[in-house]
């Protein structure tokens, strides 16, 4: 065997994933089971996202892959080169130039536009899993729209900590019906899920689930009237490279005496801003 099919997966597998994707789009926020395949990278390393991307790609696509917001993290580099090899698609680091973006743990800072597809890699798709380990139980909770346990847990957080103590993978409610795990994005990114013009697809390979947010879908972060949701990021800092005040920041330790600096986690956003500053200077 020397030649793999376009985008690696065989056609029967792609049809199966494509059918699951259409049902996922038709039932926003609901996790559609799909018969995830073993991929040539380990479970937990983006196999769900890779399968969704492979099922969506056309040769004319321009693909961007980010991990932690960055195009140059090792796993992003690895997945990008996989698709260069098996699908022959063009790749880009520019959010604006990408037609398909596969991401792990971030939504790009630059607003997405109509026609773009954002594919999330998802480790644990079940938002209720941290409350109840059994699939048989959580499936029933979704069916009955019984999210009382989640409300109780979030309220316990408030009682103990004075706020909902979840910083990432902050659960959302989609179109007033399904509670959904947005993947481990920081809650700073949650507002970007809501009414996005882009199509957002979520793939969890090991857990065999696909779900979706069609464009212009209502996505609310769970909260309470007296404890409203607040997105958060490193307080009181600007990006040390581009000076951005509105981007999500990585903290970098610079020396062994407590020195640290903050830089944009979205490398394309940061580089674009830095280049503009240089051009304007």
């Amino acid at each position, binding site marked *: 065997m020397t030649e793999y099919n376009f985008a690696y997966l065989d056609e029967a597998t792609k049809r199966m994933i494509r059918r699951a994707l259409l049902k996922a789009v038709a039932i926003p926020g609901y996790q559609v089971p799909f018969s995830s395949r073993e991929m040539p990278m380990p479970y*937990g390393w983006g196999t769900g996202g890779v399968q969704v991307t492979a099922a969506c790609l056309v040769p004319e696509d321009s693909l961007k892959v980010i991990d932690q917001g960055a195009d140059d993290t090792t796993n992003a580099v690895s997945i990008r080169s996989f698709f260069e090899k098996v699908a022959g698609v063009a790749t880009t680091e520019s959010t604006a130039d990408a037609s398909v973006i596969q991401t792990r743990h971030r939504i790009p800072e630059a607003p997405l536009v109509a026609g773009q597809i954002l594919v999330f890699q998802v480790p644990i798709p079940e938002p209720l899993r941290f409350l109840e380990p059994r699939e048989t139980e959580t499936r029933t909770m979704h069916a009955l729209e019984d999210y009382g346990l989640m409300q109780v847990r979030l309220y316990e957080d408030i009682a103990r900590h004075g706020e909902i103590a979840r910083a990432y993978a902050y659960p959302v409610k989609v179109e007033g019906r399904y509670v959904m795990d947005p993947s481990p994005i920081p809650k700073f990114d949650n507002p970007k899920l809501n009414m996005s013009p882009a199509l957002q697809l979520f793939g969890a390979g090991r857990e065999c689930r696909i779900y979706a947010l069609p464009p212009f879908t209502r996505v609310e972060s769970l909260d309470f009237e007296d404890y409203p949701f607040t997105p958060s990021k490193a307080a009181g800092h600007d990006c040390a490279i581009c000076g951005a005040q509105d981007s999500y920041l990585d903290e*970098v330790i610079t020396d062994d005496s407590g020195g640290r600096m903050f830089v944009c986690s979205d490398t394309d956003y940061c580089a674009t801003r830095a280049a503009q500053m240089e051009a304007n200077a």
Partner: protein
Amino acid sequence: MYVAVKGGARAIANAHAWLDEARRGDRDVPELGTDQIREQLSLAVDRVMAEGSLYDPELAALALKQARGDTIEAVFLIRAFRTTLPRFGGSLPVATADMQIKRRISATYKDAPGGQVLGPTFDYTHRLLDFGLAEGRDVPPAPMAETGLESAPHILSHLGGEGLMQAEPDGAGAVPDLTRDPLEFPAERALRLQALARGDEGFLLSLAYSTQRGYGRNHAFVGELRIGAVRVSAHLPELGFDIEFAEIVLTECESVNQFQGSKTAPAQFTRGYGLVFGQSERKAISMALVDRALRAQELGEDMSGAPAQDAEFVLSHCDNIQSSGFLEHIKLPHYVDFQAELELVRKLRRAAGADALPEAAE
């Protein structure tokens, strides 16, 4: 000024080159051939075939070589290859009663038609290092029986004749396929056995052991353990007949477990079942014990909450490609979610007045 680390692609390429070199080891030592692995590390090859769920000793040997002897990595290579193969159809059930027996023992009967055949077993070897092997001593041919080994009926069929062993329903109809449909609960026995057959040997061994120690105890005897070659055939509807296309070695274990009868059902033994590619009796026995433990509910036994009785727990965690992938993924960057957590903890500490504490207390 700070500059983000670049060069991921080159770092990866260099790491892979180093891996290649490390795999080869000292070039003054002759390179290992996959034929040597296949012939001389055959139980490792068998395990890779079993958990990779692909019967191909050549490929399994190659995977072991490529994986530097790491079994799970080799299983992963085989699984990732297997998933790209086209599927032409399903085989007919293999007739293990017609197995060309290499090894066959029963712990429940001293003798039975077909006899006890020890075969190539470690069982009664004294575990003393054989330093002669290091020096490449001669291996004389083993004595052969005058007549070739015959196939033999299953020992538990003798119990079945007396009605002492619960009969298993014929597996007619479509068999569920774990690799084509996502796992769903409750999982029927055929699906459970499928998952166990490709499950991690160590995981199943520990679970089986836990039942022996009382976590879902089910009093197992090894009714029969047999290892040998069986023929595999398929029905070709276009041609209207069956065609034999392979011969594979299997290990099969049937355990005999006690079962309290009820008012409506007289006392009867029940069975646990294990079937594994290649010679892998530790796995086959473990599988039989876990299979039996997972039948607790359908047999109306006390569910003691033992892990081995919990199908959702066992089936969700027995696959070592899933578990090792997810376990090892936590070494990938998590800067973003860690940063989010860091900010949250700082905020909660500020709110609690902890920022007044000296830095050294952190």
